[in-house]
């Protein structure tokens, strides 16, 4: 049953653009239903700001059910806030108590420049996928779906890492700002499947090298796994490292490039 949470103090990062200087602003929320989601609490605050003639706080969000990967936010020092295995949009106010101080910051990384306030630009993830995160299968010539039998455990393992929603929490949480979990999740998805074998080494090579242009390096903190809304395991990073090594050692002539 619905209860009210009272006297919240929010410290929210406000910044006009990527190159301007930002700062924390403090806002009070006197009362909010514990049934409300965290983003609804921000909606509510924005409604108030608009009615006071102030500019609403900009934050990214869309599906609000944890699958589109649009929402972000560092809440009290944790990517997607104080809950495991969920995105910010799945965080509810019942996780907080009366009188709490909540600090909200944007995801921070050189590759994720701030667009405005809490909104960041994560399009470097798209660059990684564009460099090799696909199987070349032009429309039209595909063989029958059941032509290749894929063992269920292989398919399941591919699905485990294919669940990545591309939210960027791994980068935000990583003390090094590395995108290894994101990149490795896609490599693990496609490189595990029979359909992904022809481009296996070319894929991992281009994706790793593109990742290197923008992001930090993995030093095995494991923080990404803790922040991942889909709880993707750092085991995929080991797979990425292995395939990258194999790609480098494989004979160039054997690889289609």
């Amino acid at each position, binding site marked *: 049953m619905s209860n009210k949470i009272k006297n919240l103090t929010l*410290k929210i*990062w406000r910044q*006009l*653009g*990527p*190159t*301007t200087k930002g700062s*924390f602003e403090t806002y009070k929320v006197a009362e909010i239903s514990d049934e409300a989601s965290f983003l609804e609490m921000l909606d509510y605050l924005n409604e108030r700001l608009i009615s006071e003639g102030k*500019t609403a706080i900009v934050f990214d969000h869309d599906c609000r059910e944890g699958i589109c990967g649009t929402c972000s936010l*560092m809440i*009290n*020092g*944790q990517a997607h806030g*104080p809950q*495991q295995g969920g995105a910010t949009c799945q965080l509810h106010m019942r996780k907080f108590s009366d009188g709490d101080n909540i600090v909200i*910051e944007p995801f*921070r*990384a*050189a*590759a994720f420049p701030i667009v*405005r306030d809490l909104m960041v630009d994560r*399009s470097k993830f*798209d660059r990684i996928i*564009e*460099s*090799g995160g696909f199987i070349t299968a032009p429309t039209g010539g595909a063989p029958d779906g059941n032509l290749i039998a894929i063992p269920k455990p292989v398919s399941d393992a591919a699905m485990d890492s294919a669940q990545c929603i591309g939210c960027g929490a791994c980068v935000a*949480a990583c*003390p*090094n*700002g*590395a995108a290894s979990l994101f990149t490795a999740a896609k490599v693990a998805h496609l490189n595990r499947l029979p359909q992904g074998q022809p481009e296996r080494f070319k894929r991992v090579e281009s994706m*790793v*090298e*593109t990742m*290197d242009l*923008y*992001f*930090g*390096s*993995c*030093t*095995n*903190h*494991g923080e990404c*796994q*803790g*922040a991942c809304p889909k709880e993707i395991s*750092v*085991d995929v*990073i*080991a*797979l*990425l*490292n*292995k*395939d*990258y*090594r194999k790609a*480098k*050692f494989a004979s160039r002539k054997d690889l289609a490039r």
Partner: protein
Amino acid sequence: MTQATSSHRSPVTGTAVASKRRRLFLLDLYSTAVGKKYVMAITGIALMGFVLTHMIGNLKMYLGASELNHYARFLEELFYPIAPHGVALWILRGGLLAMLVLHLHAAYSLTVLNRRARPVKYQSARDFQIATFASRTMRWSGMIALAFITWHLLDLTFGVVNENVGAKDAEGLKDVYGNVVFSLQRVPVAIFYVIANVLLGIHLFHGAWSIFQSLGWNNPRFNKLRRSFATAFAAIIVIGNVSFPVAVLAGVVGN
């Protein structure tokens, strides 16, 4: 409200058409962060091997001066007469130094890369979930261990800060045992020795686990053992090494 940015944005296209210039394959591998982690891991294994054998060798001091001094002599005479006196040992030392330099260079380059990856730090306190104290202090524990190694070499190898170095024992062998006892009887040195080895243990706790990830050694059958291995390895090194100053100060060794 002042205006933020209004520069015209261009569409995204052709992001994957540029081809990368290839180098010799090892240099090519080392050019990426993943490659550097391979170097960290492989040199790490070599250094771990050294740390372990060094510790095991030093346990000889519990068997008495003669045992330890004979062991030191054995090392100098390694592969003699195939190799002339002391040469094998210097080759090993050279290899070790190369490993250390590579380890440091990779660590330095990765640190620079990682600093650049987040030029603006989080402005509020982080609440880490999985990252450990060990993983977050690798570069500090590493640098203090490096400072210790430098001191340690000056102390027991080159004798710059150890008056006993150069002395011979009753059998005419280098008095390594006496060097150690002389060094560790100095309380500040013993304390530095203990602190450095605990930090080395913390460094190994993360490093020994990290190796598996960085080298892509991953298998559900042994994944759980990776952390246990790292804990055990670090514990053995710390217990072994810390026992030496304790034993010297307690008088177990040296009398």
